């Protein structure tokens, strides 16, 4: 198992966000993570990436125990993530945003000069080619999403967690986004994708995991999971 | 011995009432909007000066100035909020909190200078005829002014408490404090709640200023020390409890009065040290939630 989440529990005050969760991801997969609002998807991302520490349970990555590590250490071990509401470094240019990822991520380059070229090509790959010198505040919502992913890619992750990148996109934009995500997967990065847009997630995932109230209620091939009674109930009851 | 202890307590409560009053205003602002108004003391200063003006220019008794100062500071607070702080809505959470503090800092830079132009650096005191008078109970001196000040503070705090628990608007303030997103979804006008909360906070500070003007003096630079006092009380009390802020103010007043006997000139520093210690080791304060 590439990523192993074992019996992880996290609660806030009285609310249990993630409850005794077991989850595994194999190298090279694109795993779709779905579930109604509040089912614990973002909390899970926060637990994996180190923003939150689980009360119980363990998280292992590539055989290494990463439970409770600080986010920057998790990133240096090769896990990157994007945020639901993009968090660009506003006053920095797109290029500088990506450069931070390259200079500090896993396997970092220490020279600013050397990182520039690589970061330019990452921006190009994400469709931000001509905008490398634009300040993040001037970028529109869609470009900020691209930038968010570009910066995450610059950290040279082995596992990338994408949090609802499709929300608010037009059908054309979504097509493009799907192509990019597939390309990222093809380049050797394992992906966990959280999405609400069903069509998109069914298209790219090789496997689906469904959460509800912090528990895993279904797992398996996308077509099977979508027809699972429990899953349908969970969404309808919401 | 009893006399000394009791007198110290009384003195402490006198000052503590003012501490409580100014802390409550800051507690409201911070609790509801997460804006740490480091210019809070400036509103106190303005209130003191306005009362001074009303008293010296038209002879209005400072206690009668209360409603006027309250209204003027309410308006001033509302204006400050409308012009300055509401412009921060465009920033995300982290930046909004930081920038609110910076904007307040800007106000803190401006107010004392304007005060200096209007009233000079001289110390002003509001001294109606009954200023120094006091009566004795069991050998303890109780000043009329501090006693009246304490009563005023208690009445106001009580009124505020009723306002927050019994009125619709008061409940919307508390709802917004808990969770502004939920409050918005329930139809509460969050922006207007913020505006009025800020204005009320300013008004409370202004009223406290009248008391300070009567019991101590008013100077252009008094804002920051009083803001710090309010902060100490706030951290002592913890966020979210209006009554708690008032009691913490009294406690601070008493602690200062007592320690003044033993460590004299270091009393002010002691308060600040307590502040830092609580911030580090018990950030939720004595009465705070969490």
């Amino acid at each position, binding site marked *: 198992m590439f990523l192993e989440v074992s019996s992880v529990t996290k609660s806030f005050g009285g609310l249990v966000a993630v409850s005794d969760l077991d989850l595994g991801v194999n190298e090279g997969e694109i795993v779709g993570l779905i579930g109604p609002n509040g089912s614990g998807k973002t909390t899970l991302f926060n637990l994996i990436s180190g923003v939150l520490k689980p009360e119980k349970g363990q998280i292992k990555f590539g055989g290494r125990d990463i439970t409770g590590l600080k986010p920057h250490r998790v990133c240096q071990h090769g896990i990157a993530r994007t945020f639901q509401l993009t968090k660009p470094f506003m006053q920095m240019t797109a290029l500088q945003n990506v450069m931070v990822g390259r200079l500090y991520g896993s396997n970092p380059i220490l020279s600013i000069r050397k990182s520039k070229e690589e970061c330019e090509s990452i921006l190009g790959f994400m469709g931000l080619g001509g905008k490398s010198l634009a300040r993040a505040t001037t970028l529109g919502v869609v470009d900020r999403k691209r930038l968010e992913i570009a910066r995450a890619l610059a950290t040279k992750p082995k596992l990338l967690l994408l949090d609802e990148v499709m929300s608010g996109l037009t059908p054309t934009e979504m097509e493009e986004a799907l192509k990019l995500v597939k390309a990222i997967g093809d380049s050797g990065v394992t992906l966990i994708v959280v999405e609400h847009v069903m069509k998109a997630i069914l298209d790219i995932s090789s496997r689906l995991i469904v959460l509800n109230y912090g528990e895993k209620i279904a797992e398996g091939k996308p077509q099977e999971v979508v027809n699972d009674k429990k899953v349908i109930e969970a969404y309808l009851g919401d | 011995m009893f006399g000394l202890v009791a007198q110290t307590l009384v003195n402490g409560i006198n000052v503590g009432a003012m501490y409580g009053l100014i802390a409550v205003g800051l507690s409201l602002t911070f609790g509801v909007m997460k804006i740490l108004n480091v210019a809070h003391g400036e509103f106190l200063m303005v209130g003191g000066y306005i009362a001074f003006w009303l008293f010296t220019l038209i002879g209005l008794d400072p206690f009668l100035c209360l409603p006027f100062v309250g209204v003027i500071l309410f308006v001033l607070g509302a204006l400050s909020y409308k012009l300055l702080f509401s412009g921060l809505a465009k920033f995300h959470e982290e930046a909004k909190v*930081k920038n609110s503090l910076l904007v307040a800092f800007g106000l803190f830079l401006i107010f004392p200078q304007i005060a200096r132009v209007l009233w000079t650096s001289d110390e002003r005191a509001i001294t109606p005829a009954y200023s120094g008078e006091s009566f004795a109970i069991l050998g303890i001196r109780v000043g009329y002014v501090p006693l009246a000040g304490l009563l005023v503070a208690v009445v106001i705090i009580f009124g505020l408490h009723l306002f927050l628990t019994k009125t619709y608007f008061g409940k919307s303030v508390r709802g917004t404090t808990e969770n502004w997103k939920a409050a918005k979804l329930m139809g509460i006008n969050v922006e207007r709640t913020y505006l009025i909360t800020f204005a009320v906070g300013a008004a409370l500070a202004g009223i406290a200023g009248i008391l300070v003007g009567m019991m101590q003096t008013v100077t252009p630079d008094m804002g920051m020390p009083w803001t710090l006092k309010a902060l100490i009380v706030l951290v002592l009390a913890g966020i979210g409890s209006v009554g708690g802020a008032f009691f913490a103010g009294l406690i601070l007043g008493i602690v200062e009065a007592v320690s003044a006997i033993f460590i004299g000139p270091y009393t002010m520093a002691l308060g600040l040290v307590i502040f*830092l210690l609580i911030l580090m080791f018990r950030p939720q304060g004595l009465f705070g939630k969490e």
Partner: protein
Amino acid sequence: MAVDWKKILPIVGILIFLIFVPLVTSRTDVLTWFFLTLLYIALSQSWNIIGGFAGQVNLGHAAFFGAGALTARYIWLHFGLPFPLALLGGAVAATLFAMLIGLPAFRLKGIYFVIGTLVLAEILRLVFYTILPEADVMPMKLLGTYSLNPRYYLSLLFAVLSVAAVYWVSRSRLGMGLLAVREDEEAAEASGVNTQKHKLVAFLISTFMAGLTGGIYAYYGAAFRPGGLFEPVWTFDAVIIVFVGGVGTIIGPIIGSVFFVLLKQFLSLYLPGGMHVAVFGVLFIIVVLFLPEGLVELITKVRHRLLGESSQIVS
């Protein structure tokens, strides 16, 4: 390495001009004016590192300025050691003090850090006013031979060094990390930046520089009360200079300092002392609300407008 003569020449020119000033005039008021401006440049650049680059609004900067100043003063005048040693001693003392409080200080999040640092400096101010109430006066022998020139050149040297330090940081990987921390700590962490370490490093650099600047002031001041070295004005002046000039920029604090001292001189002629602070207060608010990069941004925008370039692209 290509040398950009267009940029280097004016800088060299200004430096040569500054070097010649004391040789051309011996007017105390002019030299003092220059001295203060240069001192402010050094002081504000030191705050620029922690406040401008790392984005940590440290309102206790005066504590380190004061620690450096007081230590240097004592080592020099009371223990009789040569001044260069005292200067270094002051800076080291300031940095050690920073290391002591740095770790607990940065555990405080956001605004608690701001208030905490402010309170810390206040405590020091009150304590020193109480335990050292008397003014510390230079001995008669030194007062007799007091010359402003060495003070001038020392502050010129440090102004240049502080600008160089900021320039170096801005070009370095450290600088990128600091800016990321400033803009969004959570995103910075997610990108692999150790935010705690970065804040601490910026803090130590900043306080070391502040300590040196304090030492220069200790060398300059004929007499002052030790508590006065910890007055919040040393922090606030630096903060407003950096913000109004342009946080996280190299020229920002320089423009800000010159503007600040000029305004102070000018306004003191017509209005009660201190009005320059009010003006800066207004500018400060404008910068926070509309112009995050201060005067530098304003000048750049105006220049682009005049030259017809798009102001969307950052040069």
